[in-house]
């Protein structure tokens, strides 16, 4: 699938914080493993680095996973709210349809 790119503000997903604490720091619920289709997201990926970003401009962010080798994987979001699920991870491609790969050692 060719992914169309649209302009998004770099911090678009980060500007809606309602947290304005001077004297407190937030706490979080116990972490939960994210799944990509029926697999644990990131399993088998070398040093997975997740980023959510709306790449195709449909208003729904995709999940991008960078790895140590310089590759990027992408999963599409399905559902919303408490029932968010992610599709199987697949390589993000360049405009010529090849998996994107950043130079590495």
């Amino acid at each position, binding site marked *: 699938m060719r992914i169309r*790119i649209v302009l998004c503000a770099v*911090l678009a*997903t980060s500007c809606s914080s309602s947290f304005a604490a001077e004297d407190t*720091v937030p706490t979080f619920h116990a972490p939960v*493993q994210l799944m990509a289709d029926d697999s644990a997201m990131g399993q088998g990926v070398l*040093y997975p680095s997740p980023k959510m970003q709306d790449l195709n401009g449909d208003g729904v962010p995709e999940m991008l996973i960078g790895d140590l*080798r310089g590759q990027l994987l992408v999963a599409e979001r399905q559902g919303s709210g408490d029932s968010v699920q992610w599709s199987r991870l697949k390589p993000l491609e360049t*405009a010529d349809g090849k998996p994107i790969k*950043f130079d590495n050692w």
Partner: protein
Amino acid sequence: MAPQFVDFNADGNVDIFTATFDGSPHVAFGSAEGFQVPQRIMDANGERVLLTQFWNYESKEWDDTDRTIESNSDGQLHCISALAFDWDDDGDFDLLLGDKNKGRIFRQMNEGTNMEPAFTGKNIPVLTGEAQFELKGGITAPYLVDWDADGRTDLVCGSFGDSYGDKEGGAVYWYRNIGKIGAPQYAKPVNLIEPSAKGQATATRPDSGLYVDVVDYNGDGSLDLIVGGYSHWTPERKALTEDELKRVAELEVQLADVLKSITELRSKVLLETQDLSKDERSAKLQEVYDTDEYRQQMTDYTKLSQEVAKVKPRNKREAFVWLYLRDQTQNRARSR
């Protein structure tokens, strides 16, 4: 490799900006057709942007330079993360470069524009208070976000921690920007995710190599964390029966035999190729790895290891991605 999605060249398309383990930042420019093949970021002198340590693609060896940092007393600094950030609020992206070894962050200023950048080639230390930025456990990657919604861009950073052993694992820290727009200053870090003590019987959290994204995941108006990293755990061991103990002993003898054969084969090739060039030696080793004999040995090794692990579980280390949703009901007092 932590990607940043940003319109790096101000052409209206989102680009992918990142540093890799080779020591330098790269960018894959976006276009109406999609992303282009990534290219390396060069400074105004046409040289690679880096800290000190880098992979030299010509010599095919790790290399080091002192050209980018004045009076460096840290030894080797290895850039593995980078962000485009308008540090001085002059309308163009400067660079933030994260170091894996000491947990430092440096900035490199852009004296050009986004469309025609001119990075100076000189790295300036980023500070926390009066001291150099130093993230305990080494930085995986920093992330730009106005965490406390005060209009200034903070940093949220993950750390590696002890990546393989039992020592303290990684964490996630918030560095509040207490400076001004155009002149950031960072406060001492606040723990968002505590350093891992490890020692669990199942995978319960990312324990090392924590890479963080900050998003409002569930749309409740507060920022959550998505964290990639390695979980370390040791499955509980049940007491083995006599038959199981006997079987494990047999398997371990077979495993030692296979390992000995693999080692002997490798040693033989290394000895035979000691006078060859590096490339010739690598090619010869690859030939051996492609032989049926070597493949069979590796298959046997894997099979035996898995069989032993079924009876006698070993320490586990696997990568996952975790979601930390904000708990709106509790807040911790922040130490100042």
